[in-house]
């Protein structure tokens, strides 16, 4: 890379099942306020925040051009505001491009999502399926995930009991994160007895419906030195898209994620996943943690179930605060993981803190069954 780009501030409001007293503009505004307080930045044309990148989705927001509502909420009045309509890690990817291009030296990234607004998030993701072949048969992201879970369990030997353990682990981990919503502890038996939603996925295998907002300040090295003592450098980023129709994809494989990780690692000059002290994986469904761990190279292809059995997630500091499964809006998945990884590198991860962590990987996914994968490498 030609120059260094840093995350200078990390902010968010607590995740909740339903933020009934605040609109999405208010959620973003609260995050922006924290970012300004942490950095002392303002919107000065010379020295302030030059551009805002927001991350959300029109269908989830139930508004055409929903970033219409965001201009003043993110301080972009007579400034640039651009919306990344995909997983939040994509917004981080774009922020990196903004700064490396030389066009801007400091940008804000604020993602927001109120999944509680819709009658069902599945109605939203149902609309991701084209109207000719897949929509008429009732596809949505849960159904796509179930098909992937079937394929992955057959390939790796992942068991129902292991998925139940992952749910219990996520809920226990969430208690170490003050931003995570208070979810009741569950036992493996309760997970195994929860209603079957789409075979093999049960209700507790899916992340709970969540509202929230997460933000970052991303800036050039020059600005970073001025506004923070704890810059977290974005040293690598890569993404990769797979094709659409599930039947044309290797659902139990990692075509897109392996390429995305390869790109990010190459940019960061990292040989393999052994270099990471912390890994934050987007896992909206329980089976995804071992599957994506394979894609990131934390374990070998098809070895995810064995890696779980050997205590891989704890040994490699993966999703110590519960990951997406503990309740993060799907649109923010990767942005939340970047924020969590950055907290570890800043020594601000509280009870979950990995001591002396200097390098982390964060991951996000967009689309049905992880069609678009994004990987970000961070260094203290």
């Amino acid at each position, binding site marked *: *890379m*030609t*120059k260094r780009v840093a995350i200078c501030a990390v902010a968010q409001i607590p995740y909740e099942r339903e933020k009934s007293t605040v609109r999405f503009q208010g959620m973003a505004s609260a995050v922006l306020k924290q970012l300004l307080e942490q950095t002392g930045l303002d919107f000065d044309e010379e020295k302030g925040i030059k*551009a805002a990148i927001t991350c959300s*989705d*029109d*269908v989830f927001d*139930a*508004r*055409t*051009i*929903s*970033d*219409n*509502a965001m*201009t*003043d909420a993110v301080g*972009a*009045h*007579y*400034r*640039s*505001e*651009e*919306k*990344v*309509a*995909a997983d939040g890690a*994509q917004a981080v*990817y*774009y922020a*990196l*491009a*903004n*700064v*490396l*291009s*030389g*066009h801007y030296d400091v940008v804000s990234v604020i993602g927001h999502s109120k999944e509680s607004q819709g009658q069902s998030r599945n109605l*939203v*993701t149902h*609309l*991701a*399926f*084209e*109207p000719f072949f897949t929509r008429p048969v009732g596809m949505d992201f849960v159904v796509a995930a179930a098909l992937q879970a079937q394929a992955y369990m057959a390939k790796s030997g992942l068991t129902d009991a292991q998925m139940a353990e992952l749910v219990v682990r996520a809920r226990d981990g969430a208690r170490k994160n003050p931003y995570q919503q208070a979810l009741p502890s569950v036992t493996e038996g309760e997970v195994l007895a929860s209603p079957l939603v789409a075979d093999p996925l049960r209700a507790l295998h899916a992340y709970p419906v969540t509202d929230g907002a997460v933000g970052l300040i991303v800036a050039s090295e020059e600005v970073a030195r001025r506004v923070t003592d704890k810059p977290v450098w974005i040293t690598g980023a*890569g*993404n*990769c*898209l*797979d*094709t*659409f*129709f599930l039947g044309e994809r290797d659902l139990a494989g990692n*075509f*897109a994620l392996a*390429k995305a990780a390869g790109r990010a690692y190459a*940019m960061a000059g990292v040989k393999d996943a052994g270099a990471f002290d912390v890994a934050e994986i987007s896992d909206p469904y329980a089976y995804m943690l071992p599957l994506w761990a394979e894609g990131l190279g934390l374990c070998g292809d098809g070895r995810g179930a064995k890696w779980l059995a050997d205590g891989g997630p704890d040994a490699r500091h993966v999703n110590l605060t519960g990951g997406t499964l503990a309740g993060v809006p799907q649109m923010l998945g990767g942005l939340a993981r970047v924020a969590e990884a950055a907290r570890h590198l800043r020594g601000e991860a509280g009870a979950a803190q990995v001591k002396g962590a200097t390098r982390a990987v964060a991951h996000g996914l*967009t689309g049905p069954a992880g*069609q678009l994968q994004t990987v970000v490498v961070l260094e203290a």
Partner: protein
Amino acid sequence: MKRNRNVGIIGVGQTRHSSHREDVNQPEMITEAVKLALADAGMTLDDVDCVVHGNMELFEMIHQPDMWHVIGFGGRGKSELRVTTGGTTGTTVAAAADHLVASGMHDVVLAIGFEKLQEGNTTGGITNMADPLWGRELQTGALTGMTAAAVMEEFGDDRAKRAAMIYRIVMDQHAMLNENAHRRFGLTMDMLEPMMENSPQLVGELRMIHMCSQSDGACAVILASEDVVRKRKANPAWIVDHVTVHREETFNLFGNAENYTTHRYAAERLFGRNGITDPVGQIDVFEMYDPSAWWGLDWLREFFLLKGDAHLKMVEDGEIGMEGKIPINPSGGVIASNPIGATALVRVAEAALQVRGTAGGHQLKRPVRLALASGFGGTLWTVLFLLSKDRPNLEG
């Protein structure tokens, strides 16, 4: 603009814009534009590193449509990004593609804008952009008669109405030269007065003939790094700079602040930092996002930083035509074709065609060194692009 490295537009592809493309689905329509852009650049899909995609989800009611459209743009295995900012989406797609190449993260980026408005309810979709508590009851899609009323109040009814209709007829004359344009009526100046009286009124003096179409269409643009441009001996339109300006959504609902348009603000910033002191004199062509003749007329004053009635005079004196001092929209502009998610990218694409000398039937006869392209959307937002025949000097 501070720029890590130069970026050139080396390929452009557009569908023929139309009210109904029932012969193709969305990915198929995008494929048409992508194939043309690749052919124009002398490339294959293998040469593309990354794809940037944009449109508005609630027009066609497809959530994250890039996931499906991958089969139309050949993006499997490539990097990808989706950005959406309403009407400005196409220019935001172009800005994002520029950032991705200039950053060094990608060498060749395929930028895609599309819309298939036939498959949804456009005015319903646009009305849904207004705040549900503060204005949705008042929103009438993109139809607003306020500009017509303001221009008439400032310059008198007759002069204003004539100037708007001259603007409209010139745009149609340009559209007649562009095979991709959706609406090509063959309007002539002798129809000016009858149309002023007879065209159906939509809102006040905003009449049917003044307003843009709803179109189906896609646009694809290939952006490449300076190294790639050199190695391939491509014919580039260099990106000099771009400015994005948004404003609060409430339209100054509770105050009386001066109406400082984002167009003027963007033009001042863009010209100021790129040595443009005489925009009308220095810029050779302007592809403006002009959703109606009234807006096109009124915005000339803002974009060119004019005062008084200078913009009306430009229109009255024939300065915006193909042979005029500052040709506006040789393509026919947005009034002729408006596939919304593609429209602003079409402006950048058409400006690039003029700079590269590859616009075909609507190519200006004079040399084009500097071209301007604008995007418009949201609550009166602007993205403004400056393209050049001459490679920007990054040393200076």
